[in-house]
């Protein structure tokens, strides 16, 4: 049951009326209360039943973080009474659903659509919590309310800010591909096709044997190796929960992983994805050709860093099972945390590098660099010392990994995505994939 301000106003009028009723007080009071109760009860009874409403949903099912999605609830009124009241489509607070409550009027037998705009501030699945329908009686004094379930969920995808780097990296890739410059055979390229010589082609690429069999001069074209396999491994353990700037390391890593996946997809490589801490949190296996980015984005959306120590041994075996015997580039997005890596990952590196090429990418913390540069008073120097120690350990781990034959990309949050893309392009140019 609900009552409105109108009922309270009516009660106020009754109070004044009884106060001035003089000797008729007892009677006036009884009549006033009886009328009040009667009217409120009548209104409750005459209000359309909120439980009788039929709800159906429509609208967006996914959006990128920072965008706005619209989800509609259509309220059908199969009862014989007119629905007059309000409706609230409830979402978790981080979904920032607007408007919160809106007035609603649906005639008997009709339906009306109610749109709610979501501007989520968190990645992951936003689930509708329920639709509260409040119906008022004909007098507008009181009514009924019911919360109905109308399940819907909107997947909030990672924002993929590094998209803006994609055109630049793609043009670098095309240079490598030979579409911009002369097709020169180099390391990391494979035979593509034979075609007729056109003036301007490098004479060194003429295939004399094929030319002998043909009328004209035939040149060989080369292209970078294709159909290489790339496995992007996202560490979702505790070190990924730490925030660099305002964003967790995990989200920076996702951004870099998405740029790499998009780039590798365009370059014709097969991209697999694995999220791991102590068990597999998400996995995408490349199916056929074409970009896997949308699937990886979907898989990433609900991932959150777990507050537990990652298990590098399990991660290594998961990688080995995922990739089988095919040589591939394994990109591990984690933190260069000395304690975690020296105990966990380094002993497993030989097992991985014997079969695959391992690349470790990590987000450097700008706050630590700022601390290391801090001077002025004793406190700042102590902080600088602690920061230098962190940086020193990071350098040591990087050196150890490089000695073990691992590629390391260590960059600030805003540079990690392009740096990882560059590392990939360089590996490709060197034919090391």
């Amino acid at each position, binding site marked *: 049951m*609900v*009552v409105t*301000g109108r*009922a*309270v106003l009516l*009660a*106020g009028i*009754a*109070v004044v009326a*009884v106060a*001035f*009723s003089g000797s008729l*007080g*007892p009677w006036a*009071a009884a009549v*006033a*209360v009886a009328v*009040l*109760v009667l009217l*409120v009860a009548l209104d409750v009874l005459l209000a359309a039943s909120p439980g009788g409403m039929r709800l159906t949903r429509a609208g967006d099912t996914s959006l990128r973080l920072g965008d706005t999605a619209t989800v509609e609830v259509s309220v059908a009124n199969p009862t014989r009474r007119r629905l007059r009241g309000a409706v*609230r489509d*409830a979402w*978790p*607070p981080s979904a920032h659903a607007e408007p*919160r409550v809106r007035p609603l009027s649906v005639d008997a037998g009709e339906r009306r659509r109610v749109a709610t705009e979501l501007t989520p501030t968190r990645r*992951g699945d936003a*689930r509708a*919590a*329920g639709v*509260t329908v409040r119906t008022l009686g004909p007098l507008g004094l009181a009514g009924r309310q019911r*919360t109905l*379930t109308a*399940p819907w969920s909107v997947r909030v995808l990672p924002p993929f800010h590094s998209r803006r780097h994609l055109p630049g990296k793609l043009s670098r890739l095309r240079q490598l591909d030979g579409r911009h410059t002369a097709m020169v055979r180099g390391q990391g390229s494979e035979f593509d096709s034979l075609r007729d010589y056109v003036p301007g082609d490098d004479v060194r690429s003429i295939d004399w044997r094929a030319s002998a069999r043909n009328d004209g001069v035939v040149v060989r074209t080369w292209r970078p190796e294709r159909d290489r396999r790339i496995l992007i491994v996202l560490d979702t353990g505790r070190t990924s*929960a*730490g925030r660099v700037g305002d964003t*967790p390391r995990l989200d920076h890593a996702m951004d870099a992983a998405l740029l790499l996946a998009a780039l590798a997809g365009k370059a014709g490589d097969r991209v697999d994805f694995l999220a791991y801490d102590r068990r597999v949190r998400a996995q995408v296996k490349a199916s056929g050709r074409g970009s896997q980015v949308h699937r990886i984005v979907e898989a990433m959306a609900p991932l*959150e860093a*777990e*507050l537990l120590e990652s298990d590098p041994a399990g991660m290594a075996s998961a990688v080995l099972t995922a990739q089988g015997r095919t040589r591939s580039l394994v990109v591990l997005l984690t*933190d260069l945390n000395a304690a975690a890596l020296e105990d966990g990952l380094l002993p497993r590196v030989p097992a991985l590098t014997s079969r695959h090429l391992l690349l470790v990418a990590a987000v450097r*913390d700008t*706050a*630590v660099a700022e*601390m290391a540069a801090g*001077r002025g*008073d*004793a406190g700042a*120097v*102590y*902080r*600088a*010392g*602690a*920061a*230098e*120690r962190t*940086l*020193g350990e990071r*350098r040591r781990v990087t*050196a150890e990994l490089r000695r073990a034959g691992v590629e390391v990309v260590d960059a600030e949050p805003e540079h990690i995505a392009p740096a990882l893309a560059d590392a990939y392009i360089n590996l490709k140019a060197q034919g090391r994939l």
Partner: protein
Amino acid sequence: MTAPSPEAPAAGSPAARPDSAARRFWRAARFPAVLAAALVTVSVLMSLGGEQFPTGHLEPRSVSPDGTRALVNVLREDRDVEVARSSADAAAAVGAADDAVLVVFLDHRLLPAELDRLAALDVDTVLVRPSVRSLSAFAPGVEMTGRELPRDYLERPLDPNCDLPAARTAGPAYVHGELYTAGPGTGAVGCYPAGAGDALVQVSGGDTTTTVLGNGDPWTNRLLDRGGDAALALNLLDAETVVWLRPDPPREEGTATLAELLPAGVLWSLLPLAAGLALLVVWQGRRMGALVHESLPVVVRASETTEGRAGLYRSRKARDRVADALRSGFLDRHSARLGMGPDAPREAVVAAVAERTGGDPGAVEALLYPKGADPYAADDDGLLRLAAELDERSRRLR
């Protein structure tokens, strides 16, 4: 930071509410309930064994200095004491007793008609500081002629100076107060003379006597043990039954409660007002659906451990470690620029740094590889100097 696990029910479904309304109510109400129970228990325990004594001037049950409980208890050792609160009670008590003495206090609280009725009783009467109206009713011809209550009266008791056995045997007493003079022909005996009259006057009429005492203070708990005060009281109240009349203040008449003064309608309007308040509570208290809960992400800075370590260094004054970290940071950053590998011998590094940045190789060695006690790690100022010198050499190396 918890990812929504698949088995978690959707928010808003009944299972998502952690407990029922009754549990919630109990959780909200249990603390106030326990508090109220504790308060009641404590107040009951404190009231047990605590006896309430009434207070008031000359009150026979009062233990305060101006009460007369002491005298009443002394009297009760060998005679009955009937405490009366109204003239009717007093008259009844007098009528029931064979041998009684009526002692009247605070008689200004009695109506003239009641005074006349009491005066008509055939009984010995002691009036303590009577009103003028009372004096004329009980002892006509005796008048109040003065008042004497000097500041130092407790050092100067009054002497009886009369033939009244009760007063004479009692001896000097502290009966200062109102003074009376009996008119001629009343046959009155005056005792304890002081200035303008006598503090005690006894009038005999027929077989009863009326004694007028100017002040009740000598019989209070405070003064009863002084001089002849107690003896005077015992002598004057010499009967089998002492009827002790201390009338309650007369009840006011013609007053009305607030409820009687208000028009009936206003009172009755409280009923719809209560209904209106209940409606107000429901109107404002009813939510549009339940609150939606959501697990919040953990917010922890990645630099937290580094900052924690800085705090540890500072609190433990680990200057040697800070100095080591600063030096190795400097060497790591510049060894490549100096053309040195990570395993380059110290002498080579020192020589290269000294050559590129100027200065004495000895000073550079002390800066980078101190022997024995580190001069820079002695105090915080040393650490600041180390940082400044390393920065200066970094600048020159660039």
